């Protein structure tokens, strides 16, 4: 079995969000970069678990980014995986990123392609679906459980108000979320081993952007909190009814 896991570089969840260049660029000063949590905790770790169960599994990682992605790719390799491929491209929109991954996926003939359910920076939840369409493969989004037996995957995915169990033959694209696996921390053996694992850099294929960000804006600050005495919570209900008019 061959698995491809797509990983994205995102700011740490506690990073201060600010913008420069007249609000057109994300301010990267002092920002810690991490593997997008959905890609790492759920997609990658589940893929590693599948490889642990079936050791002849080949596990590749792919990232679309510039050389500043290499540290998070090495961290991912420290968790597991045989080799990584970085498509040397910055400034691509979702469509373009998916096109780059699709090119890598076509070359690699993978049975399973895992993505996180979304990245925590652009929150588009688009790459998995776009990739599946480009490869003409079935797509199962928001998977919370994944098992595979003899080329047939059984996937539980979250739907509005509940869960659905699906069966599908590989190859398939799956977007992963909480429930798929538990977060792991790389151990020393993994970190040392990651240094010698191949990290191939390939140039991007020709693809266009269908969207562009014109500007960013921070939400306006709250007007300030109105405090109500704990002895008189009835006042809160009155304010919610008469002032905020929400109940």
């Amino acid at each position, binding site marked *: 079995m061959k698995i491809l896991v797509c990983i994205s570089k995102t700011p740490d969840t506690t990073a201060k969000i600010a913008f420069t260049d007249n609000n057109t660029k994300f301010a990267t000063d002092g920002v810690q970069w991490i593997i997008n949590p959905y890609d790492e905790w759920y997609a990658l770790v589940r893929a590693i678990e599948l490889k642990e169960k079936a050791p002849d599994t080949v596990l590749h990682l792919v990232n679309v980014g510039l050389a500043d992605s290499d540290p998070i790719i090495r961290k991912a390799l420290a968790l597991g995986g045989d080799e990584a491929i970085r498509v040397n491209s910055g400034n691509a929109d979702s469509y373009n990123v998916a096109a780059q991954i699709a090119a890598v996926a076509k070359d690699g003939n993978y049975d399973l392609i895992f993505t996180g359910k979304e990245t925590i920076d652009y929150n588009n939840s688009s790459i998995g*679906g776009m990739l599946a*369409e480009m490869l003409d493969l079935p797509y199962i989004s928001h998977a919370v459980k994944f098992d595979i037996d003899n080329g047939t995957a059984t996937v539980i995915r979250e739907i509005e108000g509940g869960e659905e169990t699906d*069966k599908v033959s590989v190859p398939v694209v799956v977007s992963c979320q909480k429930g798929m696996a538990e977060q792991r921390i790389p151990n020393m053996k993994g970190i040392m081993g990651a240094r010698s694992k191949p990290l191939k850099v390939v140039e991007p294929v020709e693809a266009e952007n269908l969207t562009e*960000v014109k500007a960013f804006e921070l939400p306006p600050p709250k007007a300030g909190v109105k405090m109500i005495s*704990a002895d008189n919570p009835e006042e809160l209900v009155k304010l919610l009814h008469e002032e905020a008019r929400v109940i």
Partner: protein
Amino acid sequence: MSVLVFIDQADGQIKKSSFEAAGYAAQTASLLQTEAVGIVLGDCNDDLAALGNYGLKKIYTVKDPVLNNVDAQVYTKVLVQAVEKIGADVIIFTHNSTAKAVAPRLSVALKAGLVAGANALPEVGEGFTVRKTVFSGKAFADVNILSDKKIISLSPNALQIAAGSGTAEVEALQVSIPAAKVETVNVDKVSGEVSLSEADIVVSGGRGLKGPENWGLVTELADLLGAATACSRPVADINWRPHHEHVGQTGLAIAPNLYIAIGISGAIQHLAGVNRSKTIVVINKDPEAPFFKAADYGIVGDAFEVVPKIIDAVKKLKGVA
């Protein structure tokens, strides 16, 4: 050219957020000086003509048992044909699990730029720019769609859409329906609960509630208010509450009219998921809890004393004995 809105349904009923998407489609159409129409896939028993109240002129239906499950590949193939037959240039979804599976595929199939999680109507002067949340609700981005065809997936509760009056014509659309490659073997839905992403009011609990046995306070208040229940990440992680209730940066992002946080300190990751709520109430015994800075109303006090009093006051307000 026209605006086509995907009307999402579950168990034959139109989802609430689809009415909002319908109104959004009609307003987008009027900006573009064209008409808005809708499409419903699968069996739907609801009164589709009533979508005219939200400004839709026509509703196209495609019925086939295959469409009663959402298979993104099948839905995409059907929608591509529909878009062509209808001559739609702008396609609107409501940003839920169906849209997250289908809209990206459709984006590729139509080569149509996608704005996922839009919060506002498009600006259609120079270009076609749609505002969406980024960085998990901590900022907005104005995204210009460069392609001729455009797809917008609208965040639930992003706009206040008022129903007017009107009747939509309903017409069956003839398209070919491919076989599904994904077999759905089981669907397990929690019935009777208010859907968290669509809820107007959400009551949420954190570690301050000390244990799952105390959740009666949250559910009683939620039931009285017709609200959905939610929780913070630590609470889901220690299995006090199911994972699908987790709101925050790595959980669900929501934007209800009223968010009541009980015993949640308000870590930056939690705020990211709820800061688009219109009114935020924070009840916490720690006066230094960061959540108070993001709140509209706050009470510093013990949840076990304060919340029962709130429940009594709501009962009085609602005339419940």
